[in-house]
């Protein structure tokens, strides 16, 4: 039943940062995504969420590690296979203002991918574009407009239509809602859920908005400084956190309920994320962690399955749970 559509093994992506330094944007990350599932990826800015998404979709070449899509190692793909991988894996970008070409009409933007992957006649193509616009909740009048004539929410719908145009199976959603208003965010999330049900899509949903991630994802992975620190089903991760960082991150979400908010206990997180060029030795979270010991400085914890389906990378998760 649950078949892995994508598997990532020990993925690393380093960038040269000058002066013989390297920036480890993604450091030894492993996870898998089942068909028809949504994996949420959360973390603070600069933790490598976006780089991870881009490496998975082959926009970046990984420094080391493998990405296996549909049973095939992506780095070995060539010719036809590579083309079909690029058709199957699509991306929705964060900023709907800069990700649409201002000089192209909506029909051209949505239809561009079809020209590469399908040999449609002009009529077929026009019909497909109309259908796609209808699927994302826009009328065909929009086909001949330009991106600047649309609002942020409408543009993001175009971004989704463009991704759907080549009939993908896997979509990397890179912060698709963070540039939008609250009421529009709900519309886009509803649309993504609806499309997933209709076409059996698989999503990698990257966001820093934890409450939205919880809503759309089956499982959630938490990243900190390039590493995955916790991975579990979204029900579990929001009810009981194993990693101290996850606990701090979740307790920082403000809730729209003044009384609950006042009585709630905060796990305050002191300071800011250290520079990824020169992270602390051992566990990268140790300088902000209240449970850190000498062991944490010496040895980096590995992501391990501590309970069925629950992964965490912490030496002291058991003791930290009791506090």
């Amino acid at each position, binding site marked *: 039943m649950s078949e892995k559509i994508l598997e990532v093994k020990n993925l690393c992506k380093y960038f040269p940062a000058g002066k013989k330094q390297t920036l480890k944007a993604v450091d030894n990350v492993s996870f898998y995504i089942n068909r028809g599932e949504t994996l949420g990826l959360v973390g*603070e*800015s600069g933790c490598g969420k976006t780089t991870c998404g881009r490496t998975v979709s082959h926009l970046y070449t990984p420094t080391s590690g493998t990405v296996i899509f549909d049973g095939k190692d992506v780095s070995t793909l060539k010719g036809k296979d590579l083309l079909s991988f690029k058709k199957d894996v699509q991306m929705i970008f964060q900023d709907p203002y800069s990700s649409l070409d201002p000089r192209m009409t909506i029909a051209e933007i949505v239809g561009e991918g079809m020209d590469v992957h399908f040999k449609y006649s002009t009529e077929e193509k026009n019909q497909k574009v109309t259908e796609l616009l209808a699927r994302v909740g826009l009328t065909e009048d929009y086909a001949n407009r330009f991106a600047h004539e649309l*609002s942020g929410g409408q543009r993001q719908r175009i971004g989704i239509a463009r991704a759907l145009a080549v009939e993908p199976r896997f979509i990397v959603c890179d912060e698709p809602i963070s540039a939008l*208003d*609250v*009421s*529009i*965010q*709900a*519309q886009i*999330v*509803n649309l993504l*859920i609806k499309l997933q049900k209709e076409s059996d899509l698989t999503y990698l949903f990257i966001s*820093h908005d*934890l*409450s*939205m991630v*919880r*809503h*759309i*994802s*089956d499982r959630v992975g938490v990243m900190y400084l390039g590493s995955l620190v916790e991975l579990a089903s*979204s*029900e579990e991760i*929001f009810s009981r956190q194993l990693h101290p960082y996850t606990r*701090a*991150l979740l307790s*920082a*979400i*403000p*809730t*729209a*309920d*003044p*009384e609950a*908010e*006042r009585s709630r206990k*905060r796990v*305050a*997180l002191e300071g*800011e*994320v250290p520079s990824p060029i020169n992270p602390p030795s051992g566990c990268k979270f140790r300088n902000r962690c209240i449970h850190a010991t000498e062991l944490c400085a010496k040895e980096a914890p590995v992501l391990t399955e501590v309970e069925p389906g629950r992964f965490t990378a912490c030496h002291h998760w058991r003791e930290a749970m009791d506090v």
Partner: protein
Amino acid sequence: MDKILEVKDLRVSFNTYAGEVKAVRGVSFELSPGETLAFVGESGCGKTVTAKALMRLLQPPFAVIKEGSSVRFEGTEVMDMDKKALRAYRGNDVSMIFQDPMTSLNPTMTCGKQIMESLILHKGLTKEQAREEAIETLRLVKIPDPEKRVDEYPHQMSGGMRQRVMIAIALSCQPKVLIADEPTTALDVTIQAQIIDLLRELRDKLNVAIILVTHDLGVVANFADRIQVMYAGQVVERGTAHEIFYESRHPYTWALLNSVPKLGSEIKQELYSLGGTPPDLLLPLECCPFAARCEYCMPICREKNPAEEKLSATHGCACWLLHPNAPKVKTFQERLAEQK
């Protein structure tokens, strides 16, 4: 208690090629010392324009504050101030922090210089004194190593640090009112929590009144004393945090409360989303501005704009549903209680 700021019938319009955009349509409110008032609403509802109009930061002739608008600061009419008085008022009495700490700091000046600037101008300090004071202010906003940080440029700091520097600049002259325009929107949740905690602490320590402009109801919930819900340039509902979150009466407030995903809700269930878009502010608006999107819309709503009705000393709401002849509808809170 004496009001520090009294705003009556504030109207702001923008002159564009398409015509006059009436961005703020008759907003009135008062602010007491040490109090936090929040403006909440979607983009384009006039929150920021209202905030800027309080400091007269809008540029004529494109933006016009209409005749009859009144902003009184400690009894003095801000609209009648001349250039000199205005200069003393801005920064000294009322100051502002902006949404984006990346673009609102000057990249070519050190952070210290930017704080010193207003100290030298408003308080007449010498450079040395101003520097000392700048270091103290940086310490106040909890920047580690203020002696060193004072000589750093904005690009050497992270987003959260820059927002702290912005707060330091705003607070350097001990203003009585601080206007915070979406101070945490560009920041991560963990940093957002730190900045909100800092603002709360400074409010209590310095007794500064804060006007918080935001679209995030979560931020408002644990910080604001009073909340003002704005829609299409008008205040549709106002009240204490408790009144807005637990006893609100306006359908737009309900819609806003409803569109926040709840941490206890079911996964992948459809989220509530408010259909339609806010009205075009170019058009004259005789009816209730929310009528076109309201699920309880009645014929009267399309004809006349409801006046604000007082429900308690602090709670006011402009909606025809409050009229004695209107049908009784279940409030958002009642429906929520039923679901449970």
